[in-house]
């Protein structure tokens, strides 16, 4: 077990299985390569992405299907390659990949979710990328429908 220093959670123990590697970081954070995936019952279904390189860099995310139950994006073949996944089909959500929507908290704590560019994590290898999908028809800041989240499991 290793220990990570974090601004929000303090010092936390973590196992290597909870570490997600972004070989190319994400846009605007290209040098941020290692994040801790944090899921707690007290904050479910939120999935936190905590930078292991900068204690004060923390993203809040939700699994895409929680934001949009009918979500269906299309990961480009270059992105599937970068994830180490077969480029001839879309990977199975929940089994092969975990797809997360990054949240932005605005005025009055109104939350928007990024459905245009989800974070996709290869569950077998823990390799991750942000898959930017301009043609998906989804927006980069979709207002979160709170009533739609009622009773949702992560």
């Amino acid at each position, binding site marked *: 077990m290793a220990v990570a220093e974090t601004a*929000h959670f303090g010092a936390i123990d973590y196992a290597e299985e909870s570490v997600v590697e972004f070989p190319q970081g994400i846009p605007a954070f290209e040098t941020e390569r290692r994040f801790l995936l944090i899921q707690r019952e007290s*904050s479910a279904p*939120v999935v936190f992405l905590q930078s292991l390189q900068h204690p004060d860099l923390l*993203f809040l995310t939700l699994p895409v299907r929680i934001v949009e139950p009918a979500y269906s994006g299309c990961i480009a073949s270059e992105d599937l390659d970068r994830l180490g996944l077969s480029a001839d089909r879309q990977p199975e959500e929940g089994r092969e990949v975990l797809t997360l929507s990054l*949240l932005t*908290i605005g005025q009055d704590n109104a939350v928007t979710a990024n459905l245009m*560019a989800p974070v996709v994590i290869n569950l077998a290898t823990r390799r991750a990328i942000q898959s930017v999908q301009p043609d998906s028809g989804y927006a980069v800041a979709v207002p979160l429908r709170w009533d739609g989240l009622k009773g949702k499991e992560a």
Partner: protein
Amino acid sequence: MLVIRRKTGESLLIGEDIEIEVIDVSPSRVKLGIKAPGTVPILRKEIRLAAEQNRQAARSITAASIEAVVARMTRL
């Protein structure tokens, strides 16, 4: 916005140092070749959009905003 028609093989010159050539055209996609100094950033527009949103997302996460959002989630 300046709108110009170009055929495959034709080029555009921007300023003194930038050239854009149309390499291939298909019904759904155009292939462009870009010559520019290494100091000039060339970015697909949607990457810039994603970058801006990521920055905003990161900036928006504070102790107070996390608490407010998580509290709302768990009250459901």
